């Protein structure tokens, strides 16, 4: 008998970590590696990117001036999506944000454009190899193995979306099934016919599919799906109620990755399923107080400022993600990589201050999700009245709930928000089916504030 053909040795197959060496690397060693990479990256962009050379020269900054991690945070100018969009608009498709010859750009994707104009993202072939790795760390921690097969409820357009997850599934050697072109019913039929074990979708689309399956009299708990994995919007590790809803609907374990299309699929899920770990092999990050620009201490809420080592065709250094996170370096799962419990807690651009209290999107979402009479369909409307921010919660009650119960339910939600967040929000029940449905990113925030009170990209 010939020797069996296998992707992994039996010992590797039993490994708890995708890469124990890197995932549990002592902080001191990780930081030394970060400094080395940051210095090399600074030299690379200075040599090859007209944009960064100009930015560095304006500050009389040379890569050799970066002697410590603190130097990098302090000296390298912050960048923002708007910088790159402007340059790309001046000279499409990439402007002088690009560092590599055009022949080395092998894949083009774009951001969703949900905050305005899409940002073009060029990948080199090597970038596509590396960007999937964060997913693979998360897949392995979640229990997914090479014998699993992936169903992508994704349309494979130019939107970056789940392309990186595809690269990650390929890295692990898994079978990939495309759901491109299928409508919701088609996805359900494909899953029944092709028997994948992993569903990849946005979290709200997993719930949308559950709603459609119910209409088709299909019990998703009886399908082949063992795992679901999500990104693109607050998911199961940010919203415990959503975790419960997805797990119950699919009879599977849901997972979550935090990604930013133009930066990286940067933070795979923790096996404790309560947050994500920053992939510190691919990305460097720190937290900044968005109001003062000072570094936020461990455990404090701050804006996640990110540098990617692996997007080498269009590097982003000290990039303002506008995601608010609570960074910690302690986790009993054994990983030393920074953890964001609750994933992203809110956005600097969507954070509203109502009567002196900062209100975060996920805090409101978590409270809504805990109430059984509230369906997964709701939106938060931001308005400005007499110079004050106002947030209105619009939700669909569960369809079985009598209309006479809607107003008392809205009052109970308002009271609950008041008790938990110490702020009174207006809560309005909307007829079931009255709020819009989305296939990819669900728009939870409707910002009606005057343009001058929003970031330029959101206008």
């Amino acid at each position, binding site marked *: 008998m010939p020797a069996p053909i296998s992707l992994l040795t039996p010992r590797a197959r039993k490994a708890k970590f995708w890469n124990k060496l890197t995932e549990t690397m002592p902080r*001191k060693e990780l930081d030394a*590696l970060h400094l*080395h990479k940051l210095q*090399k990256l600074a030299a*690379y962009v200075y040599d090859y990117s007209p944009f960064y050379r100009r930015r560095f020269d304006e500050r009389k900054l040379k890569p050799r001036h970066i002697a410590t991690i603190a130097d990098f945070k302090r000296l390298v100018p912050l960048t923002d999506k708007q910088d790159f969009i402007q340059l790309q608009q001046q000279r499409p498709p990439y402007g002088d944000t690009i560092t590599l010859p055009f022949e080395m750009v092998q894949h083009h994707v774009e951001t969703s454009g949900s905050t305005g104009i899409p940002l073009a993202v060029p990948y080199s072939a*090597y970038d596509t*190899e*590396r960007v999937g790795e964060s997913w693979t760390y998360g897949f392995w921690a979640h229990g997914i193995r090479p014998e699993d097969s992936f169903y992508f409820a994704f349309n494979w357009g130019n939107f970056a979306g789940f392309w990186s997850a595809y690269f990650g599934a390929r890295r692990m050697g898994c079978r990939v099934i495309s759901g491109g072109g299928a409508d919701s019913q088609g996805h359900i039929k494909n899953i029944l016919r092709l028997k994948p074990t992993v569903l990849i979708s946005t979290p709200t689309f997993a719930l949308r599919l559950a709603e459609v399956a119910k209409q088709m009299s299909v019990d998703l708990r009886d399908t082949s799906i063992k795992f679901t994995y999500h990104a693109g919007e607050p998911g199961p590790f940010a919203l415990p109620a959503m975790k419960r809803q997805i797990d119950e609907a699919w009879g599977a374990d849901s997972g979550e990755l935090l990604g930013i299309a133009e930066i990286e699929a940067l933070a795979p899920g923790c096996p404790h399923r309560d947050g994500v770990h920053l992939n510190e092999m691919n990305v460097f990050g720190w937290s900044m107080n968005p109001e003062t620009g000072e570094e936020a201490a461990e455990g404090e809420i701050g804006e996640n400022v990110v540098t990617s080592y692996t997007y080498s065709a269009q590097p982003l250094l000290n990039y303002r993600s506008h995601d608010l996170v609570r960074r910690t370096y302690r986790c009993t799962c054994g990983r030393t990589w920074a953890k964001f419990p609750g994933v992203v807690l809110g956005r600097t651009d969507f954070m509203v201050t109502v009567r002196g209290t900062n209100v975060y999107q996920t805090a409101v979402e978590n409270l809504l999700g805990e109430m059984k009479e509230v369906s997964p369909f709701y939106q938060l409307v931001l308005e400005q009245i007499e110079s004050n921010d106002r947030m209105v919660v619009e939700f669909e009650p569960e369809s079985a709930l009598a209309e006479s119960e809607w107003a008392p339910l809205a009052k109970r939600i308002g009271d609950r928000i008041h008790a938990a967040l110490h702020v009174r929000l207006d809560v309005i029940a909307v007829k079931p089916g009255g709020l819009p449905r989305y296939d990819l990113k669900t728009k939870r925030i409707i910002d009606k504030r005057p343009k001058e009170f929003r970031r330029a990209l959101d206008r």
Partner: protein
Amino acid sequence: MTRDQMIAKLRQARALADAVYQATDLPQIQLIIRHADQNLHWALWNLGQMDEIRPDLPGSIVKSGSKPKHAASKPARKKRK
């Protein structure tokens, strides 16, 4: 095999692949080797050894005899007299 030994082997593999890349004019072979080299570079990266941000930058291919300089490498202790 220790981490340092794995790093040394991977560096050696990169140097061997590069020799073929430099020696051939066949575009197919050159591009296949480039792809292989990316993966070798990535394997080194994920052993905590990063010589350059990209494998095709000058100085990325380190001589196989060079000592690894990853962050875990400890400087040799001076012998006490």
